[in-house]
């Protein structure tokens, strides 16, 4: 049996994978005879491209759910992802029509695991991107971010829907995207220095973060679980963490010691700051 190689460009493209997989299925090429190339690595032995394989049958019906799954899985950096997806498509085409419902099958399980990791990374990117205002411009923002997977294209529309009225760009090591108020434009990767190094509002944000935290409920294990340390470098508020955790016990003790004091009956004095009106009037 002839072996083939397949190359998906860009590596997260569902359309490109779909074309390749379709050619493979039509030509009846078994999964073990395809070498899916990923990024820099390439086959040791030259082999014909999968698109050159001769079709021997109509494209078999593959459920839409597989393409939905594939669109997510392809964003994963696992070099085996394309082969895994093809193996699933092949097994469905060869008669296991309800394979995707067999969530305990090792291939299906693995695909869902990869999809889950991509889903999680997508969610974390929506959460942890931090825009910094471009100095001297109004409502223009840039963020530097390092997602675990190749998800920039997948996440960008979310930021467009949310920040339609601003101009913004998100820069990552292997891809960037910009929004001019009307359309998304994708481009190559960038450097951290290409984003502003600070933002005047970050100080206020840190103030908020430090004060909304309740030292009486310290639980850093839970925090790390939800906010993995790999994302911390993007978050201005995390610089405060060592200090907040270290002093939590002290703050609670200080508060408890004050309990013994008899509370004053009324608030002392009137407001003297720049409030609109005296609130106690």
């Amino acid at each position, binding site marked *: 049996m002839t072996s083939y190689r397949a190359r998906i460009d860009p590596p997260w493209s569902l359309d490109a994978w779909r074309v390749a997989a379709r050619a493979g299925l039509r030509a009846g090429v078994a999964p073990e005879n395809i070498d899916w190339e990923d990024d820099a690595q390439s086959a040791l032995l030259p082999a014909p491209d999968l698109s050159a394989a001769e079709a021997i049958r109509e494209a078999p019906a593959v459920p839409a759910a597989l393409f939905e799954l594939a669109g997510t899985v392809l964003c994963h950096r696992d070099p085996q992802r394309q082969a895994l997806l093809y193996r699933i498509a092949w097994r469905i085409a060869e008669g296991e029509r309800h394979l995707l419902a067999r969530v305990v099958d090792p291939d299906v399980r693995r695909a869902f695991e990869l999809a889950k990791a991509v889903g999680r990374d997508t969610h974390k990117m929506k959460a942890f991107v931090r825009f910094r205002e471009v100095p001297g411009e109004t409502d223009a923002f840039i963020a530097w971010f390092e997602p675990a997977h190749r998800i920039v294209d997948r996440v960008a529309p979310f930021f467009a829907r949310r920040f339609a009225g601003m101009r913004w760009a998100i820069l990552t090591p292997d891809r960037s995207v910009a929004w001019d108020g009307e359309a998304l434009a994708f481009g190559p990767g960038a450097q951290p220095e290409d984003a502003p190094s600070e933002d005047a509002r970050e100080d*206020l944000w840190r103030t908020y973060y430090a*004060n909304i935290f309740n030292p009486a409920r310290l639980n850093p294990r839970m925090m790390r679980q939800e906010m993995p340390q790999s994302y911390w470098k993007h978050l201005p508020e995390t610089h405060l963490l060592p200090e907040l955790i270290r002093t939590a016990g002290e703050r609670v003790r200080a508060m408890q010691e*004050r309990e013994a004091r008899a*509370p004053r009956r009324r608030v002392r004095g009137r407001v003297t700051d720049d409030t609109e009106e005296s*609130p106690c009037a």
Partner: protein
Amino acid sequence: MQLRQKLAILADAAKYDASCASSGAGGRNSLKSGGIGSTEGMGICHSYTPDGRCVSLLKILLTNFCIYDCVYCVNRISSDVPRARFTVEEAVQLTLDFYKRNYIEGLFLSSGIIRNGDYTMERMVEVARRLREEHRFAGYIHLKTIPEASPELLALAGRYADRLSINIELPTEAGLKKLAPEKKLPGIRAAMGEVRTRIEENRDARKPAAVANAAPKRRKPPRYAPAGQSTQMIVGADDADDRSILSTSHGLYRDFGMRRVYYSGFSPIQDASALLPVKAPPLLREHRLYQADWLLRFYDYRVEEIVPDAAGGGSGMLDLDIDPKLAWALRHPDAFPVNLDTAPRELLLRVPGLGVRNVDRIIMSRRHGRLRVHDLARLRAPLQKVLPFVQLIDHHPRRRLDDPAVLRAQLAPKPRQADLFAA
């Protein structure tokens, strides 16, 4: 006073509000309006503080001046804490500035009562109005509603906010009388009832049929609090037991269509009153109440099943060492083992260690063949907890269910872990 100082004071004062939910507002974005903001069903946690809690909303008080004297509250009039007050514009700008940098999903605005309920509520509604109308802000807004405010303000509040909440504060009326003498249960319940009615009327009026039958060209009325209403109960400040807490929750879900009841473990505050307990309740108690609340809402348990009364051999409190679902199973060994290949969904939901998701997965995959232990392992079900209660083609718990006390000792986490929580 500097903005930064105000923020420090008014965020600090807001941290006893447990809710960080920013979900349920439906789909909305700013592509057409050219403003900013979106809500897409699921909320996003933009950060986590070292207490393990999510930071999703800018949670602030408009002011922590307050004419009330609720003893559990850090902002009560007799408390000697620094006071501050945001102007409406400051609260609006802070929300926008944080939102544009992707720090938050929106605003959760609460306030101490200044002058009177209406005056305070009007300022809060004005913040929401400016965000929506002047800045085309489509992010999430949660307004903590003041029960004494007039119906007109309540109507406006729901027009701009996604979620409204009115705190029940304490599980019993007696507790409220003792600890929050100025707050009245009938007024709180009346306001909750009013919000419910408005939400339901709005839902009906927005149904396509209702709009079509109305006068021609009539547009759908604007949405009213699309993310519903919620409430918060303080746990451990009075002597209400878990059974009365959960009964109150059950009533709140039933009578007012609450989306959520939040439990806020009473936390030590400065200048605490002598009426309060000396020690905070263990955080684990709050955690168990949330688990029990989940069983009420998604697993079809009744309050009496979760916390049996004295006649049923219960103390009125949830076990701290094991979760309420496991506790029920150990009290009812005769209901097990459940056969995973044949049992109906409602029985699968009663198996300790199986959540709604895994139950649905089991039902889906058993159409394609019988399940084995290694299939359960692949679903990442906690086998140690599940296996004593289930039967599979290659597994039967045999006599393990004969002695629930022994089984309990095997399944309860080691005490050391409980100490961590109690800290």
